[in-house]
């Protein structure tokens, strides 16, 4: 286990550095550097350069860059909100995005698990078919289509939930966005749970457990689900990532002041600094989640946790 953990953590660190390197290179390539503002005269420009260390060799610049990024100093925005530190812009928005994202994950995971369980246990009945249809639709139809459909039907026409996010009604206005975001996760997990459960249910150790006399919930939860969960956990990481990307569009549709809509704004107004900073945050979150999931996987599966000790 130790070796496994070490390997994973090292990969995490390397990937993080690689990401920073790529972002740094891209930064250099970005057209329209912030320092080409016409309002600056020579001295001011020189001062800026000195301040940001742009007159130093590139390697040093990179180190400074890494240091700054890791400390949360992302520089300032140039287009969206002139000279505002990006970290400030992000501060208020991040919790909102994480909140809705978290709700979507929880919703998607729980409902997906139950749906997949149902489909597997009631294999080849109408429930199975229904669950499968829902899953396939959920996986194929992009989250913003759901967002649009939900927003139109339940927000506009039926007026059950507010169509736009508002701070005054956080719970209520989070419902539609969370549901839209969760569809893909829910469908993926449902499908995966179903196929894993089916495989587990047909395995020899289930037969042995039955021949021991076990039946009912004890059989399903103690033996089947535990084994099926292991591969399910492994797909959780990429799903959470997809959530992050889905959030960009969903935030726009529901006018949620989160990190996603900030990114969209930044892209549309060519505020490269913001784009790069947010890319860093997204990437860092992603690989951090992957690391956590990998470690979790190691804990759940005894085959990884305990190396073969021999006879």
């Amino acid at each position, binding site marked *: 286990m130790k070796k496994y953990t070490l390997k994973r953590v090292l*990969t995490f660190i390397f990937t993080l550095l690689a*990401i920073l390197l790529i972002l740094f290179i891209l930064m250099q390539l970005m057209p329209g550097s912030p320092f080409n503002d016409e309002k600056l005269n020579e001295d001011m420009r020189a001062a800026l350069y000195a301040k940001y260390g742009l007159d130093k060799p590139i390697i040093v610049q990179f180190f400074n860059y890494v240091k700054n990024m890791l400390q949360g100093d992302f520089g300032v925005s140039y287009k969206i909100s002139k000279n505002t530190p990006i970290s400030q812009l992000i501060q208020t928005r991040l919790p909102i995005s994480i909140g809705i994202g978290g709700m979507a994950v929880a919703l998607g995971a729980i409902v997906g698990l139950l749906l997949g369980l149902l489909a597997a246990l009631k294999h080849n009945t109408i429930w199975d078919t229904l669950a499968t249809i829902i899953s396939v639709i959920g996986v194929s139809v992009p989250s*913003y289509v759901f967002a649009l459909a939900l927003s139109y039907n339940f927000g506009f026409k039926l007026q059950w939930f507010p169509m736009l996010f508002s701070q005054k009604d956080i719970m209520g206005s989070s419902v539609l966005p969370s549901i839209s975001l969760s569809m893909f996760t829910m469908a993926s997990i449902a499908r995966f749970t179903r196929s894993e459960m089916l495989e587990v249910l047909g395995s020899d150790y289930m037969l042995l457990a039955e021949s021991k006399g076990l039946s009912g919930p004890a059989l399903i939860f103690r033996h089947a689900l535990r084994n099926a969960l292991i591969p399910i956990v492994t797909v959780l990481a990429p799903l959470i990532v997809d959530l992050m*990307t889905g959030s960009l569009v969903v935030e726009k549709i529901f006018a949620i002041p989160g990190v996603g809509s900030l990114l969209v704004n930044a892209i549309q107004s060519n505020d490269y600094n913001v*784009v790069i900073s947010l890319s860093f945050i997204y*990437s860092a979150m992603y690989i951090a989640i992957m690391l956590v999931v990998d470690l979790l996987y190691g804990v759940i599966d005894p085959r990884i946790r305990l190396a073969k000790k021999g006879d």
Partner: protein
Amino acid sequence: MSEQTIKTTQNAYVPTDADFRLKDNAGEITIDTNFAAQSFWKDVTIRFFRKTSAWIGLFLIIIITVLAIVGPGMNEYTYSGQELSQKNFAPRVPGLEKLGIFDGVERMTTSSGTKEFDKYTENNLTDVYYWFGSDNFGRDIWTRTWEGARVSLIIAVAAALIDMIIGMSYGLISGYFGGRTDMIMQRILEIANGIPRLVIVTLLLLVLKPGMLTIIFALMLTEWVGMSRIARAEMLKLKEQEFVLASRTLGAGHFFIIFKQILPNIIGPIITQVMFSIPTAIFTEAFLSFVGLGIPVPQCSLGSLISEGFNSFTTHPFQIIPPVIVMALLMLSFNLVADGLREALDPKLKEM
């Protein structure tokens, strides 16, 4: 205790003495009647079509592709021709309008009740038909939808195919050579995989200006990881098999073995993966359009159409519906086909 009674069934056959002769069957007994030769692909095809969802998906793909090819030409409008006097017309189809749908009438629900607009009669344009309606520049949505489908499909398929080549080669080589090569290649892969797909795509398109080729390039950069994983897994499975060993002892070179021997055997899972990556590509492209990095105007893709339609979503919902439905159907059908392929290629017979 004796069980010598001969069981009698309804159609009891009464044996005669003649029946108790030895059969002269020395020749027959060695014939194995159970062996039925059927080619692998025939098996796969049968299994594929046995699954209803699979051929529904295939059917849908074919229909949409056909429409993407001929659709834009089916009426007199072009995808970029604007007619500003005919903005935001509701869908109107000759024939169907008699049934009360697609009749050019737009029903709007406002706070004061339902209002009906018929821009066609208002402007005395009884001979003008917009099958899916017109957008807010007066362009025909039918033509634009199918034109958009065409663009989306081309981008997606191109990206998927290039991915297949790159990803497959990477995975095959990594898996075949194993050892150090494999380890290094896999580490690189992990790092490449660590950066979220959309971040790469977004950043790339900021640096390079958006256009069909650059989008394909960006898509290609992100999808190859999945393909290479599958290729490598399959390679690892087959590498140790004896036909590979046999070739090697006969002096076959590495690339011969990889591409001429192992490749044909793994075509199945590879094609499945390609089928799966097409919807992802469509989705990613649509996403890019939505955030403003998609196909530049006046060209359109399904994603850009949805993006445009979004703005008038609450006032003229009909504008966003055709591209949304086409895109959803496309993604759905590719997923169904890929699912069906995957099951057809790898059946798990758990019936006894």
